[in-house]
């Protein structure tokens, strides 16, 4: 029998070999596919054949495994694998277990078929290899049912089988128990604690690392069960866990200390890896002990060893060499343990923290990237524990920026931003800028997603850092701070502008706007514009897709063109920066983003339109202004609705008289709170909330869509400017809160003439100015009763044009005007002829709630 089996197994093996050879020998992918498909079909039919000989069956299963490695479908062989386990032949059994553990996963229902076979094999009376195979399979392929059914069998091996003096079997049993407990923590209820006692206290396994390792794993599984035990909410289970199991295993903490420290002096060559005794076991013991001392519940049996544990950690750290690989592994595990400890007070931990950070810092100096990688990774996490200690190793962190590995660079950047403060701001930011410049100079070689992630990280962290830190303390001059930051921002725009998102652009624009040192600011801006406006350099110095740079340039032109051209303190190359180039730059931008329709391009167009409008009062050259008007006009047919609406509104504004526009388009004020710049959405909802539905407000809504400048302007220069443009005027619906804050107290001037009086209200007028064709005056209303919702309607003769201002009242902030309050409204008339006014007032009485209306005519002495 023996000879026939060897010859057939040889044949079988050669059949497997030839299959593997065929696959390897395939010249093309198609060839390979054909071979694999053919074999797969063959195996499938063969396995279905009930009369197949043992050895052939085995070969086919082996082929199936090879198909599995190749990534082919193998589910059709699953039952066959389980059948193979049931065979009496050890070789069959072994292959069966291997294929089962590979081809099945724990969700499979087929696993229930295994229960009996596994139980038999675990209890096998004579063959230790079969027991060990079963343990291996159970450990790697466990469903909850299997775990519950077979847990007692595994315990039984430790307690009663004849192999219970063999470390090889014992370690597998313990590890299997750990796996089963991880699978289902309620098994702790039936865990026989004598098992642990037997393995640890008897001298049988004193120095066996495999057994120690598996005991350590078992402890880990028990300690990590805390969460799931508490979740199960079974009182008995919790009671058993907290009062029996945990105190019991806590007894062994000193033993674990002893084993761990014993390894320090262990010089047996068997476990020695480059001068460190069994780093695997050391790490595992440290991890287990850490789990003990981080146990979520206060247990006296554990906490009484706290001091000793700190001592042990220090000893391990001091006695381990940091120059060899395995030594570093142990040291790293030690620092991980230090920074994860939660149940100690700060004075106890302080020296440990310093020790940990210094250990990590020595890792930074290492040549190999793996060590640097883990060191940076950990340092980022431990900064909060001891920022100053990390600070001391700044130099080494900076060195890591020069590393070739992107993930190391990324972590170094993260770490640098984390240790940033007022004192090192200049130094560190300059280093980071150098780093970016190098990237830029290399044309972003090998660029991929990781790089992009990193650049985003730099930009975002920079913006946050600029809000948080200042160099003012260092230099003693507060204005230096904003200028320096502006310089950095311009550099950032230039280098990586195409990575900046729209929200960040807002932040950058606010920084531009809020910089108060005008001369310096203009100097920087003019340098920036020099690059933008010079046509031939545009291509090489600034990437074409650098949308952030373009937006900022456009915005600066709209804001500062006039002041920049007139400013005497800043030397400007007028050959490059003049009205003509400014206008043509805007046209060029308009041209280049004509087709592009992504969100950032659209944002750019919004900025472009606003700048074009603003420039209409800032430039003098008629041709340039006409070009800008055309630019806006063209966009009134834009396919994007928001752009179209804005262009239409701007077109109307564009044609307004210069004096009106000038006020409306004046420079932006300083932002009070730059961090809370209102986003488009919130601005829009605010408008809706305040219930503005009137036509003139809609215009406002459109104007401030996505342009922060107009948004702000509206706040500071209230909406009456726009309302002046539009008739008939209705007021009071716009109670913009900011305008109320700054208005002076309004009183009735002495020289005001009464033009109307009734029992409810008196009306006065006061002449402000009177020129040829232009007449300006103020109307004063003095209600004699408490009224609300006052509206004034005003008409002049057909030859004249009337502009009404908003109602102002100093004694109230809402629509209600108390008795004897004074309400002011400005009024402008242009045109010719006698000045005659018809006024209609509507309001509600607060006392009676009734709606009242009064109408009267008044003839003035003046003629336009």
């Amino acid at each position, binding site marked *: 029998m023996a000879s026939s089996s060897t010859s057939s197994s040889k044949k079988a093996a050669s059949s497997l070999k030839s299959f593997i050879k065929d696959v390897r020998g395939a010249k093309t992918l198609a060839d390979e596919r054909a071979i694999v498909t053919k074999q797969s079909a063959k195996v499938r039919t063969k396995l279905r054949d009930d009369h197949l000989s043992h050895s052939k069956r085995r070969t086919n299963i082996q082929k199936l495994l090879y198909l599995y490695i190749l990534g082919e479908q193998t589910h059709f062989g699953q039952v066959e694998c389980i059948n193979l386990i049931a065979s009496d032949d050890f070789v069959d059994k072994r292959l069966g277990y291997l294929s089962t553990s590979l081809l099945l996963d724990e969700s499979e229902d087929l696993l229930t078929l295994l229960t009996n076979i596994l139980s038999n094999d675990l209890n096998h009376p004579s063959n230790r290899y079969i027991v060990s195979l079963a343990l291996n399979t159970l450990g790697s392929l466990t469903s909850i049912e299997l775990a519950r059914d077979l847990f007692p069998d595994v315990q039984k091996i430790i307690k009663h089988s004849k192999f219970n003096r063999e470390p090889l079997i014992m370690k597998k049993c313990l590890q299997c128990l750990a796996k089963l407990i991880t699978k289902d923590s309620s098994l702790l209820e039936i865990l026989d604690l004598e098992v642990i006692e037997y393995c640890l206290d008897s001298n049988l396994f004193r120095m066996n690392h495999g057994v120690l*390792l598996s005991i350590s794993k078992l402890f880990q599984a028990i300690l990590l069960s805390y969460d799931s035990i508490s979740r199960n909410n079974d009182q008995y289970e919790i009671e058993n866990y907290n009062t029996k199991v945990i105190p019991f295993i806590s007894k062994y903490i000193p033993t674990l200390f002893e084993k761990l420290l014993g390894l320090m002096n262990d010089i047996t060559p068997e*476990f020695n890896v480059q001068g460190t005794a069994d780093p695997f*076991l050391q790490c595992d013991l440290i991890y287990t002990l850490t789990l003990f001392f981080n146990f979520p519940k206060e247990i006296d049996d554990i906490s009484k060893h706290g001091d000793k544990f700190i001592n042990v950690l220090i000893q391990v750290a001091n006695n381990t060499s940091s120059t060899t690989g395995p030594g570093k*592994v142990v040291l790293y595990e030690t620092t991980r343990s230090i920074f994860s400890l939660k149940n100690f007070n700060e004075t106890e931990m302080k020296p440990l923290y310093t020790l940990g950070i210094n250990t990590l810092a020595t890792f930074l100096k290492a040549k190999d990237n793996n*060590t640097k990688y*883990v060191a940076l990774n950990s340092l980022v996490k431990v900064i909060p524990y001891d920022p100053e200690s990390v600070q001391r190793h700044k130099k080494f962190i900076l060195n890591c920026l020069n590393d070739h*590995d992107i993930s190391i660079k990324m972590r170094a950047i993260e770490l640098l931003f984390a240790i940033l403060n007022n004192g090192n701001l200049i130094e560190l930011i300059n280093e980071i800028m150098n780093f970016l410049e190098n990237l830029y100079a290399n044309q972003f070689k090998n660029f991929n997603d990781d790089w992009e992630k990193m650049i985003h990280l730099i930009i975002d962290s920079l913006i946050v850092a600029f809000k948080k830190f200042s160099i003012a303390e260092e230099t003693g001059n507060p204005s230096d701070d904003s200028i320096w930051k502006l310089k950095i921002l311009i550099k950032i725009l230039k280098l990586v502008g195409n990575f900046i998102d729209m929200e960040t652009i807002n932040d950058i624009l606010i920084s531009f706007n809020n910089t108060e040192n005008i001369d310096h600011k203009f100097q920087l801006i003019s340098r920036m514009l020099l690059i933008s406006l010079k046509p031939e350099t545009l291509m090489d110095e600034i990437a074409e897709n650098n949308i952030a740079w373009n937006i900022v340039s456009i915005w600066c032109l709209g804001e500062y063109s006039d002041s920049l051209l007139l400013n005497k303190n800043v030397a400007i190359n007028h050959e490059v920066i003049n009205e003509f180039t400014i206008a043509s730059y805007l046209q060029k931008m308009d041209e280049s983003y004509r087709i592009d329709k992504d969100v950032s391009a659209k944002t750019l167009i919004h900025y472009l339109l606003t700048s074009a409008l603003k420039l209409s009062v800032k430039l003098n050259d008629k041709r340039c202004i006409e070009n800008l008007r055309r630019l806006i006009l063209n966009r009134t047919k834009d396919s994007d609705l928001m752009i179209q609406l804005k262009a239409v509104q701007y077109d109307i504004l564009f044609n307004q008289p210069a004096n009106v526009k000038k006020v409306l388009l004046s420079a932006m004020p300083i932002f009070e709170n730059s961090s809370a710049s209102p986003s488009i959405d919130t601005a829009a909802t605010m408008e809706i909330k305040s219930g503005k539905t009137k036509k003139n407000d809609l215009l406002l809504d459109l104007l401030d869509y996505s342009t922060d400048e107009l948004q702000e302007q509206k706040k500071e220069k209230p909406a009456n400017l726009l309302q002046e443009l539009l008739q008939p005027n209705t007021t009071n619906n716009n109670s913009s809160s900011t305008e109320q804050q700054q208005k002076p107290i309004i009183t009735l001037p002495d020289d005001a003439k009464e033009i109307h009086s009734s029992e409810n209200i008196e009306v006065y007028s006061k002449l402000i100015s009177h020129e040829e064709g232009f007449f300006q005056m103020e109307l004063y209303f003095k209600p004699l009763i408490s009224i609300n919702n006052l509206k004034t309607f005003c008409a002049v003769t057909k030859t004249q044009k009337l502009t009404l201002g908003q109602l102002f009242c100093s004694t109230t902030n809402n629509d209600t005007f108390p008795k004897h309050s004074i309400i002011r409204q400005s009024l402008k008339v242009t045109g010719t002829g006698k000045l005659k006014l018809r006024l209609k007032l509507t309001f509600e009485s607060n006392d009676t709630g009734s709606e009242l209306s009064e109408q009267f005519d008044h003839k003035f002495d003046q003629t336009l």
Partner: protein
Amino acid sequence: MAIQFILCFNKQGVVRLLRWYDMCACNGNGSGGSSSNNNDELLPQDLIAQIYRLISARDHKHQSNFVEFSERTKLVYRRYAGLYFVMGIDLQDEEPIYLSHIHLVVEVLDAFFGNVCELDIVFNFYKTYMVLDEVFLGGEIQEVSKDMLLEKLGTLDRLA
């Protein structure tokens, strides 16, 4: 503290060995490893292809041997001649020790086959699995002594 999977492929990306200890690794967000109707679930083959692309693109002189792969998996890998050995581990695990695990496995393979090469692993894949199963149990290391491992493996090998 457990290995999710062990994977071995050559420079061309042909898989030579793979063993899953935790199939959840296929599931990008780690929720419900067994729910097969989850769209985020990757086929093992796609996952391996992703890992291969990621690792083969890395610079082996200058880059570390650790890669963050998904929301619950880090890769620890090492190249030996033309073969990559890759382990998927939990995010909170310590990377360097797993690198030592890989090295231990390779050393044992080397001693077991006697100057191991790719072809040994290709043609004797079932023996390679045997080695893996003596070093690891359910994704946890169970034996670290090379002598002990080789002794046991020698016996097992003779049983065939």
